[in-house]
């Protein structure tokens, strides 16, 4: 008997443009304006023509005076060009809570949540096929825009940098896969061109001048913003801070798409040798010529042990490296050399503040107590077996903000976690209770909600994206074309491609080729469920936890429980 099938048109990139408003006329008008008019269209291949990128990966955003365009802390997947009007970057105020409350993620109500117990499909990976006919539903496309009620008062009491017609903003978050570093508001009624990051990636790839321009902006703006938000520089006056900003070096280590090299190294040499491939930022005992601030990404702090390196801790965003060396030299005249080695894990942005400036401005401003406090924090090591730290760093588990960790001495294999996950996802578990182990610690194959979600990099449609509200990485099933790029990119094998079916169990196949339609799936941390991840809540033995690896103290506490 032939297997029943349901046919549909296989989805492709640009089946659904970012906005249907981008007609050929609008595209031509946009391309005639700065800075896009400087782009050489002949550098783009025919299948990725500049006009197609603009038509499919951009949209016009019209803002009224006072509208908040992007907010500090939100995760953004796009950059903006000012087509007309003026936009202000608020430099010294956090406007995260200004305006209406953030658009809440849609969550199930209690009764709908309960109804999942009997409403869930009996067949695996069932989908409502009729929904694929209308792809006008796109994430964030219908965002409600908050606004500042009294813009004049805000302008009067804040430091605002104006962005004029022809300039761009928002590229830092779009490129570094980090939260927005500043809030931008419309200073006048204005028209913006929003370019989603898939298009930005293609423009960078094919147009060297454009790449240089936006990378330059990225470096300059990132540097200024980061120094402003670091507590080390909190007590400095504007002149001192200005001097430091002028002298600080911006450095980048590792590859933007580091996961490919990492996979190759793991396969070729195994995890204990991964450290050999990590770009060195500073060597232990090197002359400490600067205080190093991690702007984004992670770095391994290690020290020599016999012929190898013992990982001491992980340096993450906002961590300072070299403080102890500089402070010791300034205070007690100890040799000015780094106490540890620092290597890049993945892709790391580093700010190097010259030692002379740290000694001149920063250390005196901290006071005796503040200096000692920072010294203690910089030297702090959590009570965790160094081998465990090595394991977590070597396998890049430190990337996770919701890593599924299982204590195997407590796990009895009851699979309540798997059942709970299935109940919350239409009877489809979104993780496998299996994965790399070290001692009694297992890292299960569940999406870790990475700080640096490299799975986003190759997605041609933006189906996999980071939600602005809380930073969760989600796959939009409607826009996923099943190309598998995200699954290939994920260094942890936590994304799966599944063949979808209708509610009767019939496979859905492409009407042209008769091959199955596949979709990428992964753990979404129960984004639409009340009460958060069902797996953790369902574990009766306290064996399973979703751990934010940025909170090293919480991890140490859990390990030593």
């Amino acid at each position, binding site marked *: 008997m032939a297997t029943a099938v349901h046919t549909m048109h296989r989805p492709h990139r640009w089946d659904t443009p970012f906005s249907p408003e981008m007609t050929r006329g609008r595209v031509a008008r946009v391309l005639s304006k700065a800075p896009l008019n400087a782009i050489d269209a002949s550098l783009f291949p025919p299948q990725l023509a500049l006009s197609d990128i603009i038509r499919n990966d951009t949209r016009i955003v019209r803002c009224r005076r006072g509208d908040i365009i992007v907010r500090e802390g939100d995760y953004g997947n796009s950059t903006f060009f000012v087509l007309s009007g003026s936009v202000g970057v608020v430099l010294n105020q956090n406007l995260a809570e200004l305006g209406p409350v953030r658009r809440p993620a849609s969550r199930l109500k209690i009764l709908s949540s*309960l109804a999942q117990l009997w409403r869930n499909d009996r067949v695996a990976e069932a989908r409502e096929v009729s929904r694929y006919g209308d792809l006008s539903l796109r994430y964030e496309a219908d965002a409600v825009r908050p606004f500042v009620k009294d813009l004049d008062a805000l302008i009067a009491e804040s430091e605002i940098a104006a962005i004029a017609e022809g300039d761009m903003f928002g590229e830092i978050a779009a490129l570094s896969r980090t939260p927005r570093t500043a809030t931008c508001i419309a200073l006048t009624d204005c028209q913006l061109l929003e370019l989603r990051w898939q298009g930005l990636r293609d423009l960078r790839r094919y147009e060297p001048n454009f790449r240089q321009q936006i990378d330059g902006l990225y470096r300059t703006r990132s540097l200024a913003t980061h120094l402003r938000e670091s507590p080390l520089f909190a007590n400095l006056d504007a002149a001192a801070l200005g001097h430091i900003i002028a002298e600080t070096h911006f450095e980048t280590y590792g590859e933007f798409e580091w996961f490919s090299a990492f996979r190759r190294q793991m396969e070729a040499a195994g995890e204990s040798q991964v450290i050999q491939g990590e770009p060195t930022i500073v060597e232990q005992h090197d002359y400490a010529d600067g205080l190093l601030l991690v702007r984004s990404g992670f770095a391994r702090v290690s020290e020599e042990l016999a012929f190898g390196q013992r990982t001491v801790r992980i340096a993450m965003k906002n961590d300072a490296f070299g403080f102890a060396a500089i402070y010791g030299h300034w205070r007690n005249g100890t040799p000015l050399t780094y106490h540890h080695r620092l290597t890049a894990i993945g892709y790391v942005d580093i700010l190097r503040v010259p030692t002379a400036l740290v000694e001149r401005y920063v250390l005196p401003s901290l006071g005796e107590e503040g200096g000692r406090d920072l010294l203690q924090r910089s030297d702090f090591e959590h009570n965790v077996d160094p081998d465990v730290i090595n394991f977590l760093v070597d396998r890049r588990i430190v990337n996770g903000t919701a890593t599924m960790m299982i204590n195997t001495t407590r796990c009895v294999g009851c699979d309540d976690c798997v059942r709970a996950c299935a109940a919350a996802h239409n009877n489809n578990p979104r993780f496998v209770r299996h994965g790399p182990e070290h001692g009694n610690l297992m890292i299960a194959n569940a999406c870790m909600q990475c700080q640096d979600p490299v799975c986003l990099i190759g997605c041609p449609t933006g189906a996999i994206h980071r939600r602005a509200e809380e930073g969760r990485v989600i796959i939009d099933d409607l826009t996923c074309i099943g190309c598998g790029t995200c699954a290939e990119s994920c260094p942890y094998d936590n994304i799966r491609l599944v063949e979808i079916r209708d509610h009767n169990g019939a496979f859905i196949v492409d009407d042209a080729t008769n091959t199955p339609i596949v979709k990428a799936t992964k753990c979404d941390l129960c984004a639409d469920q*009340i009460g958060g991840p069902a797996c953790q809540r*369902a574990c009766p*033995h306290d064996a399973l936890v979703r751990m934010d690896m940025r909170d090293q103290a919480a991890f140490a506490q859990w390990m030593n429980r």
Partner: protein
Amino acid sequence: MRSFAQRRYSNALIATVAAGAVIAIEMSRPPLVRQHSFTGWVLMASLVFLVVYNARKKIAVLPLLSAATWLQMHLYVGLFAVAVFVLHTGWQYPDGVFNQVLWWTFVALAVSGIFGIWAQRLIAPQVRNRGEAILYNRISALRMKLAAEAEQLAGHSVAELGSPLLVDFYCDRIVPFMAGARNFWSHLLGARDPIDRLLRDLRALERYLNPRGRDALRELEERVVAKDNLDHQYALVSVMRGWLFIHIPLAYGIFVLIALHVVLVYAFGGF
């Protein structure tokens, strides 16, 4: 985050105080009016609460406290129920057949629960004693894969050796060993005698084989060891999962008996 030890001490203290309070209340009543109705209803309420845990597990999608919190409450209310049961029965084995059945059902329920916790806490750390843990429902597939590989190795050796020695051993000893889960109780008790005997007998053939045969033997030995490790995990995980097939039916069974018990007591107990 409280340590497990701290949690254990505080929960045990709460359960002990609660049990002490029930004993004190019961003992404060004059012996002639002490009809055990108070302890009976407390016991009944405790059992209802204990059963609710199973319902909570079924609706994991709702944030009704974590399952771990529920399990802790289940454990200590269970221990509390044992104390109340002892008080309710007055340390005596009942006379009537019905009450004896009820008594034994409760005891079996309590013992199976205590066994379950013991099994889970003590067995879980041992599952990985012999290599990486395998998902329970994949064990049989892996077992079949190993059996197929062993069969292929034995087939190779007969063609290359021209001697049926290894194949005979394979047919007599390894085929039955590979056919399903073996040495269940030995694995549970931590005894290695059966697998040691099989490996010893297999290795004894080595001196009679040519180099190709010895290679085949070593590969066959690897499969046997891998299969034994699977059996080890299967036995342990089966116990960790299987005790619930006794505990849960007993839990539902006792409710039927309690309902009858209440009817009988109120109908014929002189209340």
